[in-house]
Structures are given as C-alpha cells and as structure tokens.
C-alpha cells in the first residue's frame, strides 16, 4: 500500500512536467496585436522628420512642436497571452547623420515623496501617482541585418554569436543606440515605468536599413493594453528635446522629455490602432493636462487635489484597476492611502 502511495506521488510530480504557466500571463486580446510591425503612412520605411527651429514668425505656432506632432505615430499593443514578449518594430533608412528615436508609453509615473524634508524637487511629488495606468517599453535599435526577430510575429534582439579562433562563442550586442534616460537618468539603463525612452543613433549609414524594436516590459495593469507614441527624427535627441519641448515644460530638463510626445494615453476600442499624427481630444480626458502638469515643474498636488475634489463633488469614485470611462479614470493615486513621513 505504501509503495502505491509513493507511486501515486511520483506520478503527481510527473504531471507537473505538462505545466504551461500560461495562467500567469494576461490573456491575449482579440484585435489588439501583441507583436506589431508598422510602416510609414503611405507604406515603406518610416522617414525621420526634420524638426525645424521655431522662427517666431508665427507667434502662436511653434514650428518644432507642430513638426513633432505631425510625425508622431500612436500605436496600441496588447499581451501575447504567454511568456512571449510583445512589442513593436519599424524600419528606417540611414541618413548619413544622427537619427533620434523616441518612444513615450502611457502615461507618467513618479515615486511618491513621503519625507518631510526637501525642497521643491521633492515636495512636488508628495501626492501619490496612480501606477495602474502606466506601461513600460524598452527601446533598442540597430542595423536590420542583425535583428533576429520576425516582423509582426516575434520579437528578437540584436545579439550575434561571434566565434573566436579557439572555437568558443561570445554573444555580441549590436544595438546601435545608447539609451539616454531612465528613471534615475542613468545613461546605461532603460527608462522606467511610464517614462519616455530615447536614443540617438549616430553616424547612420545612408540608405542602409535600421530596425527599431520596442519590447514591452510591462503593460498597464488597468486594461493590459499599452498605447504609446513614437517619433523618428533627424538629428540627435538632445537638440530635439530642447527645440520641441512645448513652452509649458518647466526647468527640469529631464521632465521635458515627457512632453515631446503628448496625448499617448488613448482609450482602447474593439480593435488596436495605429494613428499617424497627433489629434486633439483623442486621448483620455485631462490626460494631456496631467502630462503638462508633470512637465511644468510645479507640484502635482494642484492637479491631483483638483481631480480628487472634482470626483468627490460629483459623487464619483476613482476606479484605479479597470476604468472604462472618463468618470472612472483618475491619473493621480488615492490620497487617502498616502503614508506620512517615516511611516508605512
């Protein structure tokens, strides 16, 4: 009898070998692609936009901002349903000079400052963020010939196996751009949740195809659908950010990056989307105000308390987890769960 018990236990362990683990991942969403390859609006590789310097000839129009808005592509990505990485690719041809790639996933994120000390750079983050509406993508780019993925089917990387004369293989990462910003503005890492990520590909070879690959690191937990804005621009990223950050952007230069691409938080429909160019009122209501406030350098508290008061007066509750309409959508976190300094 005991042997039978041991045998049954052994069989139970063997059953674990058929475990897929798929239930650990959000399910694929019909109509929302997990892996997407996009082309220019008229087909073919995307052409880097030349962002002009605002010449002040038309005071009400910032030519640089307008150029960026016209060239921004908005897309939506969903989960793959399993461990496969979802993401997006697109190609462009080298110009002979530098090319800037900038990706801005919805929406913005900050760590809440709970300390009682600190100047304006700390106090502006006293109000909590809503982390459930933020996604994260990791940007990589390099020569298309090195890319190992399959357009629209499977994400890959730019790693090739180099074999030395002794016969041993060494993986070489042939990513051609160094990420210029992350959550701590460390130039060697990918940006964090909700933060724009960009890099300059220097000295691109004229006419040679480059691939930009955006791997989804995390989807917004509130709907498992990630909308993001993309920009491919001629020249380096730093001049672009200086030139095309809207006038509302404040003195904190790194925050300005968030407002190069505006309106990337777009409500999902029955199908995923690819939109070419910015369009007002396409995104979730007040989401652009939220971004603008983030970039302004002013405390988030003013926006967040207004949002909280408005909801309270209207008798509405924020649904942080699965908002389905503007009434339920809140960009700031729940102030009632805000810890005090030194407490948890």
């Amino acid at each position, binding site marked *: 009898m005991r042997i039978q018990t041991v045998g049954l236990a052994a069989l139970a362990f063997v059953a674990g070998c058929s475990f897929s683990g798929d239930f650990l991942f959000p399910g694929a969403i019909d109509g929302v692609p997990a892996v997407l390859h996009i082309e220019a609006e008229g087909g073919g590789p995307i052409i880097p936009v030349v962002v002009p310097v605002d010449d002040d000839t038309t005071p009400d129009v910032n030519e640089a901002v307008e150029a960026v808005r016209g060239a921004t592509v908005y897309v939506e990505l969903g989960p793959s349903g399993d461990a496969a990485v979802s993401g997006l690719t697109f190609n462009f041809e080298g110009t002979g000079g530098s090319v800037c790639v900038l990706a801005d996933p919805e929406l913005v994120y900050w760590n809440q400052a709970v300390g009682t000390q600190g100047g304006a750079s700390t106090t502006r983050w006293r109000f909590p963020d809503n982390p459930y509406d933020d996604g994260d993508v990791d940007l990589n780019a390099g020569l298309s010939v090195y890319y190992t993925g399959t357009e629209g089917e499977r994400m890959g990387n730019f790693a090739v196996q*180099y074999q*030395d*004369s*002794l*016969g041993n293989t060494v993986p*070489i990462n042939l990513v*051609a751009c160094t990420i210029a910003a992350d959550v701590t503005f460390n130039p060697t890492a990918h940006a964090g949740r909700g933060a724009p990520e960009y890099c300059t590909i*220097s000295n691109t070879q004229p006419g040679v195809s480059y691939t930009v690959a955006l791997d989804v690191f995390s989807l917004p937990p509130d709907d498992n659908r990630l909308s993001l804005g993309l920009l491919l621009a001629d020249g380096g990223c730093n001049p672009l950010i200086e030139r095309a950050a809207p006038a509302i952007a404040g003195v904190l230069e790194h925050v300005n990056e968030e407002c190069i691409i505006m309106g990337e938080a777009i409500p999902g429909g029955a199908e995923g989307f690819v939109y070419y160019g910015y369009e007002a009122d396409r995104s979730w209501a007040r989401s652009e105000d939220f971004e603008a406030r983030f970039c302004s350098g002013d405390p988030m508290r003013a926006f967040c308390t207004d949002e909280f008061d408005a909801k309270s007066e209207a008798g509405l509750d924020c649904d942080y987890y699965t908002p389905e309409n503007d009434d339920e959508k809140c960009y700031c976190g729940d102030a009632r769960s805000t810890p005090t300094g030194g407490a948890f």
Partner: protein
Amino acid sequence: MFRTSIALGLLLPALATGCAWDEGLEIRNMTGTVVIPREAATRTFQRSDGTVEEVTDVRLIGPVYVGLYPSVQPEDTVQRYPHPEVGPLFSADLSIGDAYPYGGTTIGTFRSACLKDMACRIPSGRFYDFQEMADWFADTLESPIKDIYDQPITSGELIRQTCFSTLNYTSDAEIGLTVTSDRNEDGVLDHEDLDFVERTDGNFEGEFLIWQQEYATNADGQGFTLWAFMDSPAPGDGAFSTCDSTRGRQVDEYAEDFRAGAVYQDLLNRPSVRLNRGDWVAGQQEATGDYGYIYQSPDDLPEIWINWQID
C-alpha cells in the same frame, strides 16, 4: 513494510548520484611567471643640473597586466606590435574590436592614493616603504608628490600618516603599497619581497595568480594563449596611462576631493587603446617561438617574457 524499505533503499542512492555529477568545468587558480627584461626597467634621466643618469630599478616597472586570449597575432597584424586577436569592429565609435579575453589579472594595482597627487602614479608592490616612495618621486623622477597645499613632500612618514587619516586605516598592510609580508619567506622584509625581483641574469621576474579561471581549449585540445603587457611610467611625473583617474575610491577629506584612480574597465578587452610608445608587450617567446604562451594543459606553469617595446 519490507517492500517500502526496498523502494526507499533504491531511491536514496539514485538521489545521491546527483552529488557526483561532473559539470565538465575545468576551473583552476592559474599561476606563472612574468619576466621583464632589464632594458624595460632601465631609463636614462636628464637631470636638472645637466647631468645624465641611467637608472635600472624595479620602480620603473609599471603595472603589469596578464590576460588569457584566444590567440596572439604577430606584429603588423592587429597592431604594429604583437597583440591578441580581436573580434569584429561593428561600431563607428570604436577604434578597435574587442579582444574578448577569457580572464586575467594584474601584478601591481592602483590603490590607496591618499593624496590627489598620488592618484594613478603609484602601483602596489614597487616600494619597500613610504620614504622610498617619497625619495623616488622627489629625487629620481624630480617630480615630487605634493601635499594638499601643493607643497612637495620629502617625508615618507607624512605620506603614511596621511593614508592612515584619509583612509581610516591602521596598518601599512591595509594601505597595501609597501612591503608588509615576507613573500619569499626568508625571514626578512626587504626588496626581495616586492612584486618583481632582480634575477641573477639581471632581468626581473614576478609571479601572477589568476583566480578561479575556467580553462578553454579548441577542438584539438590546445588551450588559450597567455599575453602580458607593462604600462611604463610616463616621462616626467611617472603617471600611468592604464589608470582611469575618474574611477576608484572617492576621497573627500577637507580640501581634498578626488578619485584615487583605477584600471580602465575595458583594459584587457582593448589594450591598444591605452598602450603608448615606451610600453612593453609580450611578443614572440624565445623558448617556444610562439606569440604569447599557448597553454597545453591547465596545469602549465608558464613563463612569459614581456619583450617587445612599442615604438
């Protein structure tokens, strides 16, 4: 009960066999000898009083770097001097491909620069004591170490005490720049306990130790190739080009605010970026005719000559 005992009796040995599983990794502490020709430890100084002096001294032997590479190519192949093979050059930002070393070590390291003027100038294992250090820079190089007030230091004890106070150390051994252990076990702490000692043939030799190195071979069983190079002290202040002055320990002490310096992180990957005229590398070895030392077994105890001066 009996059958249960049999089952368990079979199961336990089966589990125990996992303990004898051979991962197939050949990992050793690899040692050997580096020989520096007398010529590499000799320099002619034009003194401020117009006289000329030729000095042969172990303190002219800069930090020595030892690396294990797939192969070493002859001069005028990768560089104008013998140099390890390199991988593909895939970025316009790079001047040379990566040599992809399997491992390596140094004989003499940059450490314990307790004054800004010491950073990247003093490798370990070259000075018997601090007075010798002060004298070397002041008298031989005529470029004395300066204190925080930019005044030349002539007292080794001042350097020593500054290291104690700046680094919060309590012994010479912690500072690690001078002789503190009887390396040759002759019962005396002396110059014979430095990293490099003069041999009877007038050349200098030092031992290297590469910790926990995984041994690699090709399909024919031939191992990787040992290569070595020496960073000679720069004319003038005696600084070393393999030292990155933006790295190393951060020293913040009153008016002092500097980095102590550390070896460039990619030095073994792209040695030619830091090698300059006057430095020495291992070329064709007289004993074998090979460039560098090619391992035939992980138990080899190689002797490698750094015998090619870059001109």
